């Protein structure tokens, strides 16, 4: 049994962290939101150079066929920096979907180019993922139905609370595949996307905790740092506890996606519920600890706050995931 990061994984996270820190993601995100995705696309190509975009791609198609835990590590770091772009879609869900479908022609067309970073993809999985993020930068837009997979045709733009999530409606394009096998592949993709989403939420929550602790140590009111007030301490301690105990569920879900026991969907749902709740609490507390300054864009909190508000209900609502868990745990089995 191994449920902690290996040295390699820690190094991988550190390399990503360094790259993203140097890339000045806040500025990249601002331009992305203003429909200038070019600096962001440069970062995505750097991710490809580090292997991130090929993690879920089989070696046969030029990828790393990495363990899902590696994807968790990467997505947590991307969430920690609030990188803009279709992270869960392009890095996790689409490669998983195409691989699970096992249609060599489709795989050959798309997977090598996803792995090398030549292109990014985005998709919708109604009703859980109703809109496509960043369809204009994605050379591949997919629309997954219950038993169908189609190319998606972008339609009207929609404003998200997170202005780096440039959403569009998507209507049906050419049919790529259909039948029960598609349904099963879509289910896999949804789990992979939900786990990547959960990992980003955890990373974003950690970023807000770190920012809040820093601010509370500096901001003085009533002649002392606000971080000396017990109320502030206890709020932040609860945030830390929430994040600390959500993380092992990410790892357990990654193991489940790798090994595919009957409980895999349950474990992904547990991770998503726990990470979303922990991140939501981190967001609420960060705003409360920062006070009015948290509202100002110059505080830099907004990237994480709005990302969290958008992602907590993406890739399956809390209620839907809780329903999946109850269905699984009432179906016998003592694991």
């Amino acid at each position, binding site marked *: 049994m191994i449920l902690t990061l290996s040295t390699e994984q820690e190094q991988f996270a550190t390399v990503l962290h360094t790259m993203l820190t140097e890339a000045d993601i806040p500025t990249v995100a601002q331009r992305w939101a203003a429909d200038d995705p070019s600096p962001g696309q440069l970062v995505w190509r750097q991710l490809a150079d580090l292997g991130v975009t090929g993690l879920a791609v089989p070696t046969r198609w030029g990828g790393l066929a990495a363990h899902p835990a590696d994807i968790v590590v990467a997505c947590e770091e991307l969430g920690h920096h609030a990188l803009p772009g279709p992270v869960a879609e392009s890095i996790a869900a689409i490669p998983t979907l195409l691989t699970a479908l096992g249609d060599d022609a489709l795989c050959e067309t798309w997977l090598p180019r996803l792995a090398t970073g030549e292109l990014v993809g985005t998709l919708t999985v109604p009703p859980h993922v*109703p*809109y496509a993020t960043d369809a204009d930068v994605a050379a591949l837009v997919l629309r997954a139905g219950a038993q169908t997979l189609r190319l998606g045709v972008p339609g009207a733009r929609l404003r998200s609370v997170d202005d780096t999530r440039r959403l569009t409606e998507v209507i049906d394009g050419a049919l790529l595949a259909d039948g029960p096998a598609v349904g099963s592949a879509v289910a896999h993709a949804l789990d992979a996307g939900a786990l990547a989403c959960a990992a980003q939420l955890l990373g974003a929550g950690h970023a807000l905790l770190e920012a809040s602790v820093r601010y509370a140590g500096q901001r003085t009111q009533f002649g002392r740092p606000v971080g000396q007030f017990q109320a502030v301490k206890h709020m932040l301690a609860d945030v830390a506890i929430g994040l600390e105990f959500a993380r092992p569920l990410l790892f357990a879900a990654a193991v489940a996606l790798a090994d595919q026991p009957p409980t895999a969907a349950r474990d992904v749902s547990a991770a998503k519920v726990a990470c979303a709740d922990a991140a939501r609490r981190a967001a609420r507390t960060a705003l409360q600890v920062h006070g009015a300054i948290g509202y*100002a864009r110059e505080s830099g909190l907004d990237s994480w706050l709005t990302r969290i508000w958008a992602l907590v209900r993406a890739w399956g609502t809390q209620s839907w995931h809780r329903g999946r868990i109850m269905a699984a745990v009432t179906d016998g089995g003592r694991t």
Partner: protein
Amino acid sequence: MTQASAMNLDLDDEARTFRAEVRSWLTANAPTAPLPPMDTADGDAAHRAWERHLAQARLSVVSWPTAYGGRNVPPLHWLIFEEEYHLARAPARINQNGLFLLAPTLFTHGTAEQRTRLLPRMARADDVWAQAWSEPDAGSDLAAIRSRAVRTDGGWLLSGQKTWSSRAAHADRAFGLFRTGADRHQGLTYLMFDLHADGVTVRPIRQLGGATGFAEIFLDRVFVPDADVLGEVDQGWAVAMSTAGHERGLSLRSPGRFTAAAQRLVRLWLRSGDQADRSLRDRVVDVWIAAQAYRMHSYGTATRRADDHTPGQQRGPVALSGGGHAASMTKVYWSELDVALHEVALDLLGPYAETGGRRTDPAGRADDDGSGDAWLDGYLFSLAGPIYAGTNEIQRTVIAERVLGLPRDRR
């Protein structure tokens, strides 16, 4: 125990007539589509026009004396007005800083000249007021204010920086505390100033969600005549605090706002699909209960006998004699309720929440009048509730010390 004066929720003829008049006027006059955002030039103009229209019907400040544009009606009528106003989804009040923060202070501490000069213009939104409380290093700790007012011939010269000033970008005038002495609390003076005066620079703050209109105000030797000192020089802290919980606990945000929103939430729940799923039902119901509790609490406050100034429990070993500090309980209550209400709404909208439930939601879960923005913008707005006007942490400490009588600690 006497049936004659038994508890009841009946409105007398006067109140019933008043409700009917307000309702029919709003039905005939309230805009059917939302006005443009207040922090745009168009929106500013539209909201001012609405306020003038409201004032012409003598409905902008119903609880004020008639001399200033009001109807001199009791607090219960004000609650009724607010219920009808929010049910009609009439526009947000562009002058609420003036109406809810400055006016109560003018009534208590202003001179007759100030009231006559300022209140009628406020009632018609001829002057729209901004508040200028916070400074970069004085948020919750208002006594840490550093902006100064220096004595000059016939008045004062203001210098310094204010921040989180709501409405400042388009308002006419502002009010706030300025340092006139060294003592943290005893050296502050309450002053009103012109936002178009020489030496004033207003810089909007770019913020989350975009639309709530905060700004920074930079002041460089801005002249204010003595006539615009509110209360005594150096007594600004006491002046500001004395009306913090004005109108005997009837506060900044009226219950009508929440009972109307709770009704919309129930309708959202009805449209949001699976009603056998009661996992969100309980949260919707709890919001409804809380809005109702706030409403009944306010009715109690509004109809309290004149000789009774104690809220809540009147007896028992611990005297819960809140007095003005009862406003702290109300503030925590409505601000937490407002956040909960919007969180439930967003959870009902599910993945459509991030866009405010607009357009393509197949279940049609957007807001009932189609303005799906309302829940999302409302959420961002609600999150400011536990922060501004004294953070809820500070309010809880006030409740513990002043209402419950727990031992004080250094802040």
